[in-house]
């Protein structure tokens, strides 16, 4: 096919005027629609973008967007029925940045409702399928983004979002690259909150270069998001090169290679570690003892925050509505019972419980302390190691029909490898290995995106 190009090739050809954009764009839409029928990756396909798409760094590169990131004028539901019909009157800051650089927003991708899940099966709409095996899940919660990036052989990048691993997991399952930046590097303004102290907007792409490119565009301080970091803009594609950093050592946390992790996955990650060793990057086994506490702490904080975030959805001002003929308490309950899925209800109940007086100290406040300890432990390791390397997911993507059999706790446990760095706000990248659906996870210290991009690039381009 004539537009079967990488993002890098697309940009070069566009720069040199070698592509008829209108022809490209209509071909793209045709292919996208066809592919989407197969994969159910996008909930909405929209192509209403105005303005000159020949300027900026992206030259009209198609960008899909996870449903929980607000795009002005395009229905944004965060995968939940309760927001059906909600059309944001503003763009998320990352969308403004993409548009400024002539990225073409082409639609909203399916996800677990509000990000509550690991397989995108908790979607209020369609469940995206894994292009590598359509009987299996694409992963979650940014499943639609990873599925369409993997399934569509055209230049395209997707904006995802991770709270506890929602970029890494589907990227690993669909064998694409998922980059989750440091908490606060990318503005969350316009992101429909799951857990504000954990949410990070990131990128899913076919190559490390693609993710580094889009990160360079969306990163940076934003006065609309108080938690953004005041850091100078950086071109992360500069780290996409074959040079090997000298005298560095990677940490291999032994807790991330326990018997609970599928042996085929462990073996494949070890192969990658040995490859890196062969090109001169040393490794050493280390220990992340706090890992066992990170998962419960994460779920308590995430659920406590999300239970407050979800309070605003009550059918009064936007989204799902009914005729309000009764008192507001009954009306709110009616709308919420109808609009929220089972997992959302579970998290509202658990999250509310964890912050009730009498339990608050034992759960919520203690979890906050654990988070500090987890960060401290990472910081200590990063004094010694350039980055940490491990598997992304402990399992292969389950079959969609089997997901029902997985208990909520088993499902939460499958986040065991991605949750600790997410809880600590560390940047991470999942890069495909040579085995389908197995991702290599690389984690570095706060604001060291350059390091994870570097290592991922070396693995991606291994000979």
């Amino acid at each position, binding site marked *: 096919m004539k537009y079967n190009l990488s993002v890098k090739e697309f940009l070069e050809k566009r720069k040199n005027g070698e592509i008829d954009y209108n022809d490209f764009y209509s071909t793209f839409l045709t292919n996208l629609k066809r592919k989407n029928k197969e994969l159910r990756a996008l909930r909405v396909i929209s192509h209403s973008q105005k303005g000159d798409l020949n300027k900026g760094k992206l030259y009209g590169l198609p960008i899909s967007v996870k449903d929980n990131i607000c795009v002005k004028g395009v229905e944004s539901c965060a995968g939940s029925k309760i927001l059906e019909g909600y059309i944001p009157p503003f763009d998320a800051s990352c969308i403004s940045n993409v548009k400024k650089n002539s990225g073409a927003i082409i639609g909203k991708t399916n996800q677990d409702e509000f990000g509550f899940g690991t397989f995108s099966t908790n979607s209020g709409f369609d469940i995206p399928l894994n292009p590598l095996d359509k009987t299996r899940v694409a992963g979650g919660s940014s499943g639609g983004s990873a599925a369409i990036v993997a399934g569509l052989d055209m230049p395209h990048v997707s904006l995802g979002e991770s709270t506890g691993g929602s970029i890494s997991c589907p990227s690993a399952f669909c064998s694409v690259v998922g980059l989750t930046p440091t908490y606060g590097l990318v503005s969350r303004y316009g992101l429909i909150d799951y857990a*504000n102290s954990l949410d990070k907007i990131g990128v899913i792409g076919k190559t490390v270069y693609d993710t580094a490119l889009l990160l360079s565009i969306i990163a940076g301080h934003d006065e*609309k998001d*108080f*938690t953004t970091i005041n850091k100078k803009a950086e071109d992360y594609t500069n780290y996409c090169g074959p040079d090997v950093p000298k005298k560095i050592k990677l940490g291999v946390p032994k807790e991330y290679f326990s018997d609970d992790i599928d042996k085929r996955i462990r073996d494949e990650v070890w192969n990658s570690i040995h490859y890196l060793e062969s090109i001169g990057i040393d490794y050493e086994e280390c220990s992340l003892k706090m890992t066992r506490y990170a998962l419960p702490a994460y779920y308590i904080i995430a659920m406590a925050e999300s239970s407050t975030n979800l309070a605003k959805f009550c059918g009064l001002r936007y989204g799902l509505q009914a005729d309000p003929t009764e008192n507001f308490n009954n009306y709110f309950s009616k709308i919420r019972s109808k609009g929220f899925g089972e997992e959302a209800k579970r998290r509202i109940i658990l999250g509310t419980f964890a912050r009730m007086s009498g339990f608050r100290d034992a759960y919520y406040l203690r979890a906050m302390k654990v988070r500090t300890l987890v960060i401290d432990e990472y910081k200590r390791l990063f004094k010694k190691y350039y980055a940490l390397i491990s598997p992304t997911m402990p399992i292969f993507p389950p079959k969609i029909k089997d997901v029902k059999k997985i208990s909520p706790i088993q499902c939460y446990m499958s986040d065991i490898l991605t949750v600790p760095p997410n809880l600590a706000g560390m940047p991470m990248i999942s890069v495909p290995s040579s085995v389908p659906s197995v991702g290599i996870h690389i984690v570095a210290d706060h604001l060291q995106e350059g390091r994870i991009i570097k290592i991922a690039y070396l693995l991606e381009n291994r000979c």
Partner: protein
Amino acid sequence: MKVKIGLEIHVQLNTKSKLFCSCSTNSENSKPNKNICPTCMGLPGSKPALNKEALKKAMRLALALNCSFPKAIFFSRKSYFYPDMPKNFQITQYEIPIGKNGSYQLKNKKIGIWRVHIEEDPGKLIHKGGTIKTAQNVLIDYNRAGIPLCEIVTAPDFSSIEEVKEFLSGLISTLEHLRIYDPLNGSIRSDINISIMGGSRVEVKNVNGIKAVEHAIKYELSRQKNMVKIGKKIKMETRHFDADMGTTVSLRTKETEEDYGYIFEPDLTWIDLTKEFISDIKKNMPELPKEREKRFLKQYKISRSEASVICMNFRLAELFERVAKQVDAKLASKWLRTVLIGVLAYKNLSLRTAHIDEKKLIKALKLLESGEITEKTCKELIIKLVNGEKFDPANYVVEKRLKKVADKKELEKVIKDALKENKKAVSDYKSGQKEAIHYLAGQVMKKTGGRAEMRIVMERLKELLNSI
């Protein structure tokens, strides 16, 4: 009878924009739901951005109330479902308020200030065609949602309505002196905790304004006293004050404290109150009422009680200082504090609500000071000013022939004429009927058309009569 009263006061700070967005705070003069944006409407994806001006203003108040500052603050989410709350949680402060452990000195007592913190105001519910209990429809205006509120929580140290009144008027004067509150557009809402004789605590919620606080306490005290009298137990409950009826009605009985499930507000980070930041606030602290009172004693040589009364009313103090630049301070103090405020109070007005032409007021006081008009005429002029009549004091005095007989010779002649023409009264006085002097004085005032100063007429009459 032992009475314990504590107050939780919510003051709207006079910032230009709301606490977490750039919407205007001028909600009173706008159409409903005009001053709103994604943030104050809590639209999905919106985020709060702190208005530092509100923080600074609240810190001034905390300083004025002798509170101590923490090293850093953060905000919390207080969760409860209510239609006037766009997010169904309120961003407020819980664990670490801006100020705590402060105090306020009344004349005879110190009132503990437990905490001072900032939070966002909810929207406003309008109960169409009825009350909170009877209205068929409720409208919601979110213009108010997100306006910065400063909450002041006192210890239950008040034991009478008088103490509460003294505190509240002092607090309002302090707020105005700090330039953080606009009494015309900003509201003050109080929750009042009242218990008598060690009984259960009753909370009266959302009492609007200062007068209403007085009425609510008065009603609640007598209600509780009657309960005790007839041997009934006072329940721990929350009551609503009906301003029209002047009564309180039960909203709900409290089994336990409400559980708001507080968590940290994760969209706002810790905010350091650095030494530099605090010292900057201290440096820019406006003069407080009590400091002003001290300065008035020195600068204007007026009495302590005069200075105290003036400084308890910010606008009066401002007016006084401007007037005292042109008129003798003691005269200004007396006439503004007693006559002007008295006339205003009689008309149910205040310096906030009445528009008084200050230049004309100063002209009138100058005419009095220079002896051109009598005190009676001066008061007449002030009444006209309060009524908002259009006139020039100097011209008016001439036109209405109100100019005082200031010329000593002229007055002397009138007095002597009166003595000549009223021989009987003179002899009555000389024979011991001292009250005859009043008749003589009356004759003098009649001849001058009331333009003579009674005090001077009496003095001169006495002298002349005694010399005969």
